């Protein structure tokens, strides 16, 4: 069975690191009974949160992003933290199609994508200090394998 696991990555908020972060997150989650769909969901949700740190958090200075991962039983949790400008009104920011970015480029659907691809999304933010997005997903245990494990034990 799964033993608990954790990881932490620190990287600069650059667009090249969006792919790097989501690939690391997928590799971290892969020890669970993930389907291809679960992996796509995780990659996309982590990519959204990291992209937001790159696009919205740091407008005037260069900054860093921390990606933390944790596995407990069959639940994987990621935290994406930045130290940028923060979000004044989190509820408003999470509305579908709400965006403060250049409308030609941003769709305002980032949080909506995170929410529909993960089981739980929690956003904490302090204006002037930064934002932390927590993404949680429980991966159903493969029932055949679980039954075999019970039979063996």
């Amino acid at each position: 069975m799964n033993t608990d696991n954790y990881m932490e990555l620190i990287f600069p908020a650059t667009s090249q690191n969006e792919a790097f972060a989501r690939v690391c997150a997928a590799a971290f989650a892969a020890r669970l009974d993930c389907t291809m769909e679960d992996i796509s969901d995780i990659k996309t949700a982590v990519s959204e949160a990291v992209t937001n740190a790159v696009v919205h958090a740091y407008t005037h200075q260069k900054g860093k992003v921390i990606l933390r991962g944790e596995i407990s039983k069959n639940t994987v949790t990621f935290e994406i933290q930045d130290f940028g400008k923060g979000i004044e009104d989190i509820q408003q920011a999470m509305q579908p199609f709400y965006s403060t970015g250049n409308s030609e480029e941003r769709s305002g659907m980032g949080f909506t994508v995170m929410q529909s691809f993960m089981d739980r999304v929690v956003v904490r933010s302090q204006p002037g200090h930064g934002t932390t997005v927590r993404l949680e997903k429980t991966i159903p245990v493969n029932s055949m394998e679980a039954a075999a494990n019970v039979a063996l034990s």
Partner: protein
Amino acid sequence: MQKTTVRALCVELEGELDHHNAETIRRQLDRAIMRCRNGLILDFSHVTLMDSSGIGLLIGRYKKLKEKGMPLYVKNVNSHVDKIFRMSGLYNIIEKLL
């Protein structure tokens, strides 16, 4: 179901449609939009990932084409991309070809 035939310029997209790649893809699609006369078909066969930056990109291309009175179509959308399309309502403005 009947297979639809449309006369339009077909562009094959490749790789990951994220924020990092959006700028390059946008420039290439806008060049294609300048050339096309009957609308644009985007072939998603080789798209492995799409996030909300891709949604913004497609809405932008749809608007550009609409100004010229031309439609935007997509084809060969995989299940991951399909989820993004359904969630965002993109199918209301972009027709999926079979």
